[in-house]
């Protein structure tokens, strides 16, 4: 698995918001069939990096390679066309719609001339949930408002992988979940990897990270501190990297280089 080429590779990415340098020469990659955790303290640049990959905003400099070809992602549509799907922390589900309607939102199937093809969408939704071993839903016609936090996360993930996606980015998938539901979601994350998808998981919870991740990228103050193989490192090492990792460039904070 470690021999496969990265499907998504970002090199020397920089991005600034006005005077604030959010990312400086960041390198990041993920391979098919692996879970790459992306960790870092608040303000380390995790979200900025993810939003750039998802096409929410563009990077100032650096290159993104997808499947070996350099690509330019200008908007969310470009990212979706490549097969990059992001599951945001707030999940972006419409509570008042049922599971099927949410999974197909914006990409509904139509029976010409204009009738929604509910039967076909229902079948596909069930198939996708099956393939992810999501079995806790009573019915795909339940409204999302009736679902538990873990079930919502599952629906949001299923929605993301439904579209032949190849890279799935999960933003804090276990935040705000109880123990049992966290387990359920982590199992789902592993299932995605086992299906050969490239999974990027942003998390603050190192316990969760070590449970599922194959590799861990640590960002600190907008720079890549290091990329670690999960089995070959420890929580202490990662915590140290997050809080005091060695930086190449320290804008205006030269003293911290030796910290």
């Amino acid at each position: 698995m470690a021999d496969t080429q990265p499907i998504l590779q970002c090199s020397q990415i920089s991005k600034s918001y006005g005077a604030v340098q959010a990312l400086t020469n960041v390198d990041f990659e993920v391979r098919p069939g692996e879970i790459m955790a992306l960790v870092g303290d608040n303000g380390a640049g995790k979200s900025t990096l993810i939003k750039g990959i998802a096409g929410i905003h563009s990077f100032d400099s650096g290159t993104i390679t997808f499947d070996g070809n350099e690509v330019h992602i200008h908007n969310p549509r470009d990212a979706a066309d490549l097969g990059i799907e992001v599951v945001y922390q707030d999940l972006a589900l419409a509570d008042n719609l049922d599971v099927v309607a949410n999974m197909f939102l914006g990409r509904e199937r139509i029976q010409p001339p204009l009738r929604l093809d509910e039967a076909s969408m229902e079948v596909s939704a069930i198939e996708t949930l099956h393939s992810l071993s999501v079995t806790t839903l009573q019915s795909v016609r339940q409204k999302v408002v009736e679902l538990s936090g873990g079930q919502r996360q599952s629906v949001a993930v299923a929605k993301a992988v439904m579209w032949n996606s190849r890279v799935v980015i999960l933003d804090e998938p276990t935040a705000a979940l109880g123990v049992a539901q966290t387990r359920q979601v982590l199992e789902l994350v592993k299932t995605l990897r086992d299906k050969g998808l490239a999974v990027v998981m942003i998390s603050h919870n190192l316990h969760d990270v070590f449970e599922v991740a194959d590799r861990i990228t640590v960002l600190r103050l907008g720079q890549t501190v290091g990329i670690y193989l999960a089995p070959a490192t420890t929580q202490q090492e990662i915590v140290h990297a997050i809080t005091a990792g060695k930086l190449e460039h320290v804008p205006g904070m030269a003293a911290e280089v030796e910290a």
Partner: protein
Amino acid sequence: MNDAPEVSGQVDVAETKSNTFSEHVAGYLTRLRRGDVGMLPILLGLIVIAIIFQSLNENFLSPRNFVNLIVQMAGITVIAIGVVYVLLLGEIDLSIGYVSAVTAVFMTLRLREPDSWPWLLAILAGLALAALIGLTQGFFITRFQLPSFVVTLAGLLVWNGVVLLMIGSSGTVVIQDSVIISIANYFLPPLWGWIVGGAVVLFFTLGLLNEVRIRRARNMPTVPMGIIALQIALLALVTFAAVYIANQDRGVPLVGLIMLVLLVIFTFIANRTRFGRYVYAIGGNKEAARRAGISVERIRMIVFMLSSVMAGAGGIILASRLRSVDTASGGGSLLLNSIAAAVIGGTSLFGGSGRVVSAFLGALVIATIENGMGLLNVSAGVKFVVTGSVLLIAVLVDAITRRARQS
């Protein structure tokens, strides 16, 4: 009157279980216990109201009054259909009362001699004007992100003024065109009443069976045939009873048929098309809709246009019923009754929840109260107090059952 069949949601993700008649009934009872009461409270409320009025005045449940009721409620129902869509977005449209009047007055003035327009052209011109008004209001709401409350409040004032300006000093303009008068004053001959009733039942039978056929073709569980037969029998009973009663008097009102067709069309749009799905999605979670690639502002704009057009259509019906328009057109309690109809019928003011049929149910409640009070010769003050109380009870029932659903 007839909501399109719900998408049956009986598919289990883990395994598709067979659906028998008794299981289906049990499922319905479970939903009731969970607080998912649907139209039940309002139907019970209507029965209670009918019993009260009948005991106070024996003419209430007469064929004559039944036909009157249909004619009285049609205008508000049609306006309230537009209100449902606006409320589904979580928005409000306060301009509908006077937009309905602007449309009706504009149409009526086009019919005036000597150079009167053909009736169809006059109606279409009126509705086109309504669409333009909705487009303008929608433009300000979406382009500048102004609250719909304020933009349509401004509209309320502006269109009230326009009505006065258009009518001028004449005070009242009488409608001469016989076709336009017959919109609200023509009654189907008895035989045609039966034919139309039969067509309605046939239409829904075919619709339900088509649903079953599609799901069977994909090996998906379907609503049991027993339930479908029950639904059709119930529908046939209600439809033919209505036709029979109406035929005892003047016959089925044409405007009742127009109302029914509009209800069916807009129920289909809300439940079975992308546009309808997007309206619900925006009302439920605007950000989710945006991220899903839905052009939120375009949908909102279309809904405000729709709201104005439905208001215009309702205005034409109201004008036809009165055979005239005057400086008071679109005023009074029309706006509040139209919004109250949608809300009493079960559409939430907070967006994302409600059905087109609630326009009909709420308008039926309001028209029933007005009609019954009219028979009792009570003052307008009592009418308002009772209607207001019913509105409060309706939202109270909704809030309580909602809480039961969520806990």
